[in-house]
């Protein structure tokens, strides 16, 4: 499928130079809350991608009718309705996953990325670019979550997706899981490390110092 350069920028920009988490520093709250294990990070990434993409499409379709004064309320209602539907469907068809995510699904409503994209992009663009923008931002948010979740679970619990990966021999030799990794401050430090590496490789993102 050949994508025009503009479409490409909309879809792939958020994965790198316009990343919602490490460049715009949005959605940090949930990035800290759900990443102590890999699996919730993964499901959260997928759920956010789906919700942002569809909310973007709906708001984009309605954009010419929405009264300006209540546009935030309209966006919130659409987002909340979509999240409720996702949660209901999960309850009916993937009960176990829903149980694991519990509060996290509801938290998607308050995700700044969601409202940010609706306000900044969907209100001014057509449904197809909005859809791609939603997918792009969802994935841009998702890969950070997955990287952070990977390191936190590996170093904090010695497991990945619940399976033991650090061999018992390490523990016998005196290795210990880092309990700090389980706490939210370590997620901030990990995100900061990702930002550091990312900025080091993208000089144009570095801020001028006087």
């Amino acid at each position: 499928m050949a994508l025009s350069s503009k479409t490409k920028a909309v879809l792939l920009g958020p994965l790198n130079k316009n990343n919602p988490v490490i460049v715009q520093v949005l959605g940090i709250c949930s990035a800290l809350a759900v990443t102590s294990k890999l699996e919730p990070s993964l499901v959260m990434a997928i759920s956010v991608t789906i919700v942002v993409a569809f909310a973007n499409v709906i708001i984009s379709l309605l954009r010419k009718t929405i009264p300006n004064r209540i546009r935030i309320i309209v966006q919130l209602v659409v987002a909340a309705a979509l999240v409720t539907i996702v949660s209901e469907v999960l309850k009916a068809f993937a009960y176990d996953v829903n149980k694991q995510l519990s509060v996290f699904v509801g938290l998607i409503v308050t995700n700044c990325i969601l409202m940010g994209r609706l306000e900044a992009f969907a209100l001014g663009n057509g449904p197809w670019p909005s859809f791609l923008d939603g997918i792009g931002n969802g994935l841009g948010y998702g890969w950070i979550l997955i990287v952070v979740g990977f390191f936190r679970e590996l170093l904090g619990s010695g497991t990945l997706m619940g399976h033991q990966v650090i061999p018992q021999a390490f523990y016998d030799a005196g290795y210990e899981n880092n309990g700090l990794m389980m706490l939210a401050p370590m997620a901030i430090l990990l995100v900061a490390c990702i930002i550091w590496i990312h900025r080091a490789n993208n000089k144009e993102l570095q801020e001028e110092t006087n």
Partner: protein
Amino acid sequence: MNRENSGYTIIYAAVMVILVALGLAFTHQVLNEKQTTNVNIDKMQQILRSLNINAKAAEAEAKYDELVKNAYLIDSHGNKVEGTEGITPNDPAFSTELGSEGAQGLPVYEAEVAGAPVYIIPMRGTGLWGAIWGYLAVEADGSTIYGSEFGHAGETPGLGAEIVTLAFRNQFTGKELFKEGEFRSIAVVKPGKSVANRDYVDGISGGTITSQGVDKMLLQSVGEYKSFLMNLQAAQ
């Protein structure tokens, strides 16, 4: 059409809310039956886990029917409430939740494992972020724990949420609720600490509030079954 007109704004908001409400109500109606079935199967799985049986969702119902012989409500003296027997999801013992309004009594499930009766009692309490609950399987002597199961609404993954793990639950097996004929419950202590005069298990490191919640839940929820458990002991 003037989008900034107040009348338009009000009508827009009203129509939007009604449409969304209809949509959500419809979704709920359509999926309700499936959700209820899932909730019931989940409850059966929890009860089975307290018997140390890890049943998949597909086989939980058959396994539950096979092992759970009876279920009923008990009154505050630990006696069976007449007419509440039955193990299906529609019977009062299954549909009564602890602490629900107008409940006729407290639910007890009677299972038979390898020829010996095991009594399963539900528990309910609070953790750090929200509700925690569980099932405790007690042997016929009314004191020895056969198995346990814990669940939570939203404890911290990796910390408080670890109460659902086998490593935590298995500690309870063989512990005794009664010491010297007195109900003492089972303490959940900080790993490495100990308590005198009662059985105890190690709590979760870093999950202190949740561990305390489990401790309190055992004391209170199981405490409500004190008379029932004493009756079991008397019948021995």
